[in-house]
């Protein structure tokens, strides 16, 4: 009996070990650098960078892996715990504060100093986003995004609205200004009556003037309500980055949200239930259900890619502050502390942050590179595809951008404020209910 028992155990051990010992992604030989990103559209651009990098550095091999956004952060987090995270990965402002404070990211300051890498070549403010509360730099910028107003060209023409007029739109939280007038005019009911005409039936709307995002906004409302709230002069936090007090109790924020949900009552914006019932706001736009739709520059490919819909894009409206507003967000590449090839990883990060690589990315016209001269390349390539990106980039030149709120506790805040804004937009709670939520948010920082 002894022998078979031992044999059985002996047979099991390799099986069990094989299960645990997935080849560490962070390893892969000392001259290989593993790099992760989440956007499949950007994969060809970064592969082009990797090819050029390897040609110049024959001793270092770059292995790029791509995982969709939904899996990406789970894989990164479990990878950090198991010691199998990639050497270099695309990082996001929502996640890096946590990783940096848990010593999972390599501070780049020494490398930056040693190689005299300029940090002032990027669009203004982008590089500063990646300096954490401890004063250390955890990433070098690769791209940026802003929000603008996509429109359906045919619907505008049918309504007798000149595209150029969209740049002159104004908004205020009391009557919505010329912006709300336009949304009303572009709304059409089943009988063909427009939202600003007598006899408009708001219970049978065929085309809503404005589309409603399918996400709950996670407390930031980046492509959903931030362009209104920020245009009142409101700010998310006492300071940014690294604020420790949120301002969801500010009347300016609550008024903007109140105005926004008023559009639902008037029939100009779909109900929250409709927006959440199965299709994304961009697909709704592509199906001709919305005339206007606010969304981020990372969605250009979707909005301009629908068959039978000719899209255009205009800047967000000018608000009571006298300025337009959009969130300004950017990604960067970070190095994992567990890498066994720190120098190779740094060389790759340095290359990713260089004008040479960012121009290659610009040529693919999928994102806006962080370095202005690379952005100019992207601008031309986008124009060749029929997309004028000045609606997005103009905000940067006009100083109309507001940094994405960078704070600790971002996931907890999203879990508190996202559903609370849902409750307001579905008329289960008043905008003033955000005052109590704000207290819960601020309690996280005590």
């Amino acid at each position, binding site marked *: 009996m002894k022998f*078979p028992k031992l044999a059985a155990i002996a047979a*099991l051990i390799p099986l069990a070990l094989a299960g645990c010992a997935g080849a560490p992604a962070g390893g892969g030989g000392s001259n290989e650098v593993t790099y992760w990103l989440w956007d499949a559209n950007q994969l060809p651009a970064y592969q082009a960078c990797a090819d050029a990098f390897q040609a110049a550095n024959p001793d270092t091999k770059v292995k790029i892996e791509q995982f969709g956004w939904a899996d990406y952060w789970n894989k990164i987090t479990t990878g950090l715990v198991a010691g199998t995270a990639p050497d270099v990965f695309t990082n996001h402002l929502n996640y890096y504060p*946590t990783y940096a404070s848990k010593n999972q990211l390599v501070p780049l300051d020494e490398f930056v100093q040693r190689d005299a890498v300029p940090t002032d070549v990027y669009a203004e403010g982008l590089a500063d986003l990646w300096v954490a509360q401890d004063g250390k730099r955890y990433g070098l910028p690769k791209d940026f995004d802003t929000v603008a107003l996509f429109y359906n060209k045919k619907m505008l023409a049918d309504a007798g609205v000149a595209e150029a007029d969209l740049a002159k739109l104004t908004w205020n939280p009391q009557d919505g200004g010329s912006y709300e007038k336009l949304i009303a005019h572009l709304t059409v009911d089943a009988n063909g009556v427009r939202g600003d005409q007598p006899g408009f039936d708001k219970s049978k709307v065929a085309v809503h003037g404005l589309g409603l995002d399918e996400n709950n906004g996670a407390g930031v409302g980046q492509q959903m309500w931030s362009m209104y709230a920020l245009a009142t002069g409101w700010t998310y936090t006492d300071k940014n980055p690294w604020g420790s007090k949120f301002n969801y109790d500010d009347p300016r924020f609550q008024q903007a949200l109140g105005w926004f949900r008023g559009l639902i009552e008037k029939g100009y914006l779909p109900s929250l239930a409709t927006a*959440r*019932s199965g299709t994304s706001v961009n697909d709704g736009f592509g199906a001709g259900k919305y005339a206007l739709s606010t969304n981020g520059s990372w969605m250009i490919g979707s909005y301009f890619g629908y068959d039978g819909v000719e899209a255009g894009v205009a800047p967000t409206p000018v608000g009571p502050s006298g300025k337009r507003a959009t969130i300004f967000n950017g990604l960067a590449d970070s190095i994992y502390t567990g890498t066994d090839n720190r120098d190779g990883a740094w060389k790759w990060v340095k290359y990713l942050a260089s004008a040479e690589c960012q121009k290659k990315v610009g040529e693919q016209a999928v994102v806006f590179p962080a370095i202005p001269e690379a952005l100019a390349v992207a601008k031309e390539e986008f124009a060749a595809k029929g997309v004028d990106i000045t609606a997005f980039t103009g905000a940067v030149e006009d100083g109309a951008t507001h940094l994405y709120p960078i704070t600790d506790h971002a996931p907890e805040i999203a879990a508190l404020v996202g559903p609370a804004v*849902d409750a307001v937009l579905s008329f289960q709670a008043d905008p003033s209910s955000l005052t109590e939520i704000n207290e819960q948010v601020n309690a996280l920082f005590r």
Partner: protein
Amino acid sequence: MIARRGEGRVALLFLLPAGFGFVLFYAWPALQTFYLSFTDYSLLATPNWVGARNYAEAMSDRKFWNALLVTGEYVLINISVQTAVALLIAVLMHRLTKSSVVRGALLLPYLIANVVVALVWYTMLDAQLGIVNAALTWFGIDPVAFFGETSTAIPTIALVNVWRHMGYTALLIFAGLQAIPKSVYEAAAIDGASEIRVFRTVTMPLLRPVLAMVLVLTVIGSFQIFDTVAVTTKGGPVDATRVIYFYIYEKAFQQFDFGYAAALCVVLFLILVGVALAQLRLLRAGSSDLD
């Protein structure tokens, strides 16, 4: 039957692989979860012992109680409709047809991945572009935002999963029906009993142990609702579909509060043990009326 000593050892040997897997993949993680439930653990740092603080927090966590309530509503709708429909299908198959084509067709929805089923229904039920609402509009009915309305979201998710699981559950019940001796049905036929009477006084009592087993399995499976929510409503609108496993997932993998999530797991485990025990007692699963 008394096994000889040698046979016992062989049996042990055969149990070893399964036992090894059980300890490694079930018992050990379960114990670990129990330990973590008394700690503050963010995954990236070592766990800190905090005593029963996580449990105290759970008791006053409105979202946790809401999640239990939402899950309860889901289980109630899912199990009652699913069991009724599956029972009907099984009895119809038993009394009308033994066709393996029908049996195979019934199993088809179960062979499609959960996530695919969820996404296809999510698209079909969209208020503006879904094919179901297009049909409703054609009949003059106003479109319904099935997944988007707080009142209809949970019933919709429950019924989508009924659609996927009813064939499989029906087959389980059908297997139980085949174990009932033909002679009792013949006797009932000789006595001139109607189909409904046969169902009430012959089929149901004799099926009870199998039904109890099926109920225990499906109720526990139903409590574990996660994937349909994760790929469609993501807990919203507001908190209407924030079922318990989705809430635990958010706490652990989105907010990195693994200690608290582990405590919620332990509470849920206790609830499920209670539910299973209550079911077995109520349904007297151990005894059969077939004596």
